[in-house]
């Protein structure tokens, strides 16, 4: 059945909706900016890693089925660069939006713990769930993360990624890869 309304009403409605969308976008941008501020100002180091303690016991004890797979670390590195580096930094040293994955808390966590965090995300703190990656790919990322080892201690630790030393080489440019 055909329904018509006046062009004036249509224009008003369309303008309102588009203006609303733009206002929403701007407010979201500011909200995100505030979130970043809150994260950067969060000096309670353990807050970043509190989720690790909430992983169920059964999940912690899961063994990495790809531990002995020869290409796992290289594949995990590729996946990390594709999906994780944007927030966690190119060498997992952390960034404005996400914590350092080479911190002791992460490196000492069991593979099962990291797998669970990757699968379930930390949605309220901005980390999406990554269960859309098949299980073997999530294990490949876990293997890569565990291969990094803890960050070398320096007197500037905790003040930002640019002032820390790294035990691993910088990632390769896109289009290339390197076996471990």
């Amino acid at each position, binding site marked *: 059945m055909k329904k018509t309304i006046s062009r004036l009403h249509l224009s008003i409605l369309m303008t309102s909706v*588009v203006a609303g969308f733009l206002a929403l976008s701007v407010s*979201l941008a500011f909200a995100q900016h505030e979130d970043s501020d809150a994260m950067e100002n969060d000096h309670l180091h353990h807050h970043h890693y509190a989720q690790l303690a909430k992983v169920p016991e059964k999940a912690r004890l899961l063994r990495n089925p790809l531990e002995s797979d020869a290409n796992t670390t290289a594949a995990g590195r590729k996946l990390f660069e594709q999906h994780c580096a944007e927030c966690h930094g190119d060498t997992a040293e952390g960034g404005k939006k996400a914590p350092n994955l080479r911190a002791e808390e992460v490196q000492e966590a069991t593979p099962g713990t990291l797998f669970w965090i990757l699968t379930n995300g930390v*949605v309220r703190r901005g980390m999406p769930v990554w269960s859309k990656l098949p299980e073997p790919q999530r294990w490949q990322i876990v293997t890569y993360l565990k291969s990094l080892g803890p960050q070398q201690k320096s007197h500037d630790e905790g003040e930002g990624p640019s002032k820390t030393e790294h035990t691993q080489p910088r990632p390769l440019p896109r289009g290339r890869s390197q076996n471990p």
Partner: protein
Amino acid sequence: MGLNESMAEILPSLTSCQIKTLITSFVLYSFLVVLLFVRPADAQESPYIVTYDHYLEEPGSLEIEYFSTFGTQRGGNDFHAAWLEFEYGAKAWWTTEFYLDGQTTFNDSTIFTGFRLENRFRLLQEEHFVNPVLYIEYEQISEADKIVKEIEGHDVESDHGVPNAVARQGHNHELEFKLLLSKTFKGWNVAVNPLATKNLFPSDPWEFGYVIGASRPLALKASANRCNFCPENFIAGVEMYGGLGDTASFGLHETSHYLAPAVAWNLPSGWTLRLSPGFGLNDNSHRLLLRWGLSREFSGFGEMVSRLFGGRQ
């Protein structure tokens, strides 16, 4: 209108049409300039074109998607409908989208048919046996819209046989609600999306429909090297969707239904290509709805916009 009049006072030598073009160009170029400074992200997109799984856009990322639908039409002219999607991850639990729709009916005309605003909210923080996401969409489209992104109520092929000049006179202002239920296990994703739509004209009934989808990557393990043709870059699936009548006549009577195999190719450069030929399952359905799409995700878009509005560098 008001903006155009204000601009006309400032720039009296320009016609209203030129001013509209100027404003549109300014908005488009500003948008493109912003995109130049954000980083393309590698995607792991599903092959679904109609189905939604429970995965939302990553926070701060913008995904721009173009989709086409070529449809055969008995008792009328075949058509090519296209839509452009801007999908933004506002939060890890909230994704918002803006659509622009248009279509070309062969031997008739090419027209803009309307826009849609969509929001998806993740209801549970962690992964569960089934993961629910609430979908709410407002759409303002003309009755000439032919993207056939969802089938609802008693939508049938003959609805699209009306000439554009007639069909575009009718407008729909609809609210659409979907419950997106999805689960991924052993590489398989299964998603079910029951939907209900209400045209905002009070006399119109609620209309219902369904979408079901399943998909899986060709390989579950990633290879060590970046490659275009690695099997894990390809995800194959199938979608089935159709109408379920309305509050006055719920059921399969005079409804249309489709079955559509689908494949997505996620390129390391960040582009995703999708292809899905959909086949009508009864006489009320188009015989063929051939769909394809191209998309690219830009991470850090929210941060970039934040900087433009005075945020920290």
